């Protein structure tokens, strides 16, 4: 859960998505500003943290990067339990990865924290020629399911920081005055227009 201390909040964020969609690359771009063409597969999980400033508050993301293979699915609840936010990543050049993303959304809706801020990221947006998933299709799906959507490229850095920034803005804590009692149970903000940009 996001927890606050004078508008400096910590938020657990989990990255989920199919094999080789670029989960680790997105995190490394965001946290270290780096990109490796052949980023090795994630074994088990990796943990990173990075802070973003939103208006007069700062959000420290505690980021769990997970292994994508279905075989390791049974370990996923350990990561998304208690997460304030999730980025579900698919590869715009791979239809199966989009289908898998939808399954993750379903699972989070069923099992995850009900206030979780969810982002759908269509990664590898630099590979326009190989596109298999239309941005409109993903946008529609995202809208229907209360996610915000962006196409990203960890390689070119397009929209990477933006995804995290948009998540930070949507965290329930930053949507209203800090609530010292510790429990904020509000719905995700309805307005998603600002986050709906995509690179194409």
């Amino acid at each position, binding site marked *: 859960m996001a927890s606050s201390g004078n508008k400096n909040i910590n938020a657990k964020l989990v990255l989920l998505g199919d*094999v080789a969609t670029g989960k680790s690359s997105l995190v490394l771009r965001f946290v270290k500003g780096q990109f490796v063409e052949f980023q090795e597969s994630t074994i088990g999980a990796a943990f990173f943290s990075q802070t973003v400033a939103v208006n007069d508050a700062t959000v420290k993301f505690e980021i769990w990067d997970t*292994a994508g293979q279905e075989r390791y699915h049974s370990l996923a609840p350990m990561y998304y339990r*208690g997460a304030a936010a999730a980025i579900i990543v698919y590869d715009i050049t791979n239809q199966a990865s989009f289908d898998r993303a939808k399954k993750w959304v379903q699972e989070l809706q069923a099992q995850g924290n009900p206030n979780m801020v969810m982002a759908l990221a269509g990664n590898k947006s630099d590979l326009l020629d190989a596109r298999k998933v239309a941005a409109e299709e993903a946008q529609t799906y995202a809208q229907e399911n209360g996610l915000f959507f962006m196409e990203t490229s960890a390689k070119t850095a397009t929209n990477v920081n933006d995804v995290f920034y948009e998540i930070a803005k949507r965290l329930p804590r930053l949507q209203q005055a800090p609530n010292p009692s510790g429990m904020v*149970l509000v719905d995700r903000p309805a307005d998603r227009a600002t986050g709906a940009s995509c690179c194409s």
Partner: protein
Amino acid sequence: MHEPELHDLSDDADYAASIQQGSASISQNESRRQSTSNEPDGAEIVYTKDNVTIHPTQYASERISGRLKLIKQGNALFMTWIPYKGQTSNARLSEKDKNLYTIRAVPFTDIRSIRRHTPTLGWQYIIVVMSSGLAFPPLYFYNGGVREFLVTIKQHVSLVRSAEDANVFLVNDFQSPLQRTLSSLELPRAVPVANVSSSTADHSPSSADIERLESDKSSASFNQNSRQRQKNHDPARDLSIQVLEKFSLVTRFARETTSQLFRESHLIDGFNPNEGKKHGQSSASYNHIQSSIDSPKYHDEVSVPSDPIEFDKISLVWGKPRQSPLGQQEWATFLDAEGRVMDSKALIKRIFYGGLEHNLRKEVWTFLLGYHAYDSTYAERDYLMSVKKTEYDTIKKQWQSISPEQAKRFTKFRERKGLIDKDVVRTDRSLSFYDGDDNPNVYLLRDILLTYSFYNFDLGYCQGMSDLLSPILYVMRDESKSFWCFVSLMERLGPNFNRDQSGMHSQLFALSKLVELLDLPLHDYFKQNDCLNYFFCFRWILIQFKREFEYDKTLLLWEVLWTHYLSEHLHLYVCVAILKRYRNKIMGEQMDFDTLLKFINELSGQIDLDATLREAEALCICAGENGEASIPPGTPPSLPLEDASVYPQLDDDVL
């Protein structure tokens, strides 16, 4: 289910006993229900089922049968599973082994879900998953009763069928978001080892309650059992003391040195650990200590529970000094004229302490991996290789001959190939052997992995396998030979990739037992911080530290592990050695699970292999039989002793 299980039953002692017991259990249950429901303190057995059995390995002789119970006290429901005593004819299964798996009073607040499996052939079983993500081994209901078990639970705690999977029942899955949030925040998290009696003492029925419930049993075995339980916890303590005693001199020496250092560091700015070491060595001759040395202020800046073996402050290293690698000339002395290894034990020991020169690996790894027999001749090995080459080509053709039209209708093949294609292009690409565009070695990796996924279709391809194959191909430089060496390695490490994670769970479980044995304060720290699932060591174990060391160091570590010289499970002692090396940092900085995982991942490339191996060796010797007894039989990389053809398939998910 597995073929062998059906005919194994006739000569299975547990099963024979079960037939008698099983029929009696219902009436027993009824009568006890009446007698215990009036217990003044309200601890009540609400469900009993005999002959609920775990299968630590796929072999009938190693199964452990026991009694599963649900106990209610106040509003809390607990599950226990206690193995029967002394019913097995198998000498390999000691009482200790059985006790490893014993489930004592696990509160349902610690349970996340129960998965029911109802195979068309064989017994129904359940897998109980804890909130921590760890699971108990599958519990097979030889006498049926899974449904009754679930119905009983439902009468006492919230049990909801998962919308995702009709066979998964979620415990405490509160519908109200508030309740749900609260529960995720406040529920005590599970201790993911089977032996949870001490950790859940606050919530458990008092031991007196359980004792009383169990004394109702007509069978005397349960009294023995509870006595056994008392004893069960002792070996760890005993060993801790033994270790303490063994190292008492050294400990004193270490503490003395530490406290000296701290005294000095008050006087001079900073200190040089090497100087300290020298100083310590020179003062090792006096072996009395002032009582003030034990006072915490001299111990460490942060008050960290002291360890009998101090690794952090002073780089004292145990174990024999590492030797130089075995070279060509010396290797020749191990062989007779026809190429047989004359003294394989001496060879193994030599490799354990020194490893191999790189140019020898190609030849010697085939023995270490079990592809060639030590007593084979040059001619026999050449012959085997040519036969195996043909065999490899045959298996490879199986997937090569799949036409594009056929592939369209073969989703599993396409998925598998896609996964392998994605992983080989990101495996060790910084190494010149694998770098650059269209590198043929990358295609070899792909071909071997895809062929393996046909050779072992049940296991398939799993992320991590490319990490295990890469060094083998790098060493062998031969497709067929690499394939068969990989096959040999996977005979041992295949269970790491089981769908139900059972191979990994059993190793992480054994690791937690070893840390408890060898560093109780660290174990207690992990317990207090919900780190007992040891998940932060997942990558270490899954791919044998492949990502933790530079490439050539990994080659050395692997050949040392493969000797199985002191233990088949030296890799677990390596884990303990690394954790001990950083224990003061971990505890001093009060690392929580997330921080610990990040810290451990970032140790990659920082670990001193030689020192770690020496420490692992010393810890292994130190732990001795108690160490091996902490590792359940069948824990990878132990080789199965019987029929090796069965590959446990616990799930029917795709891929």
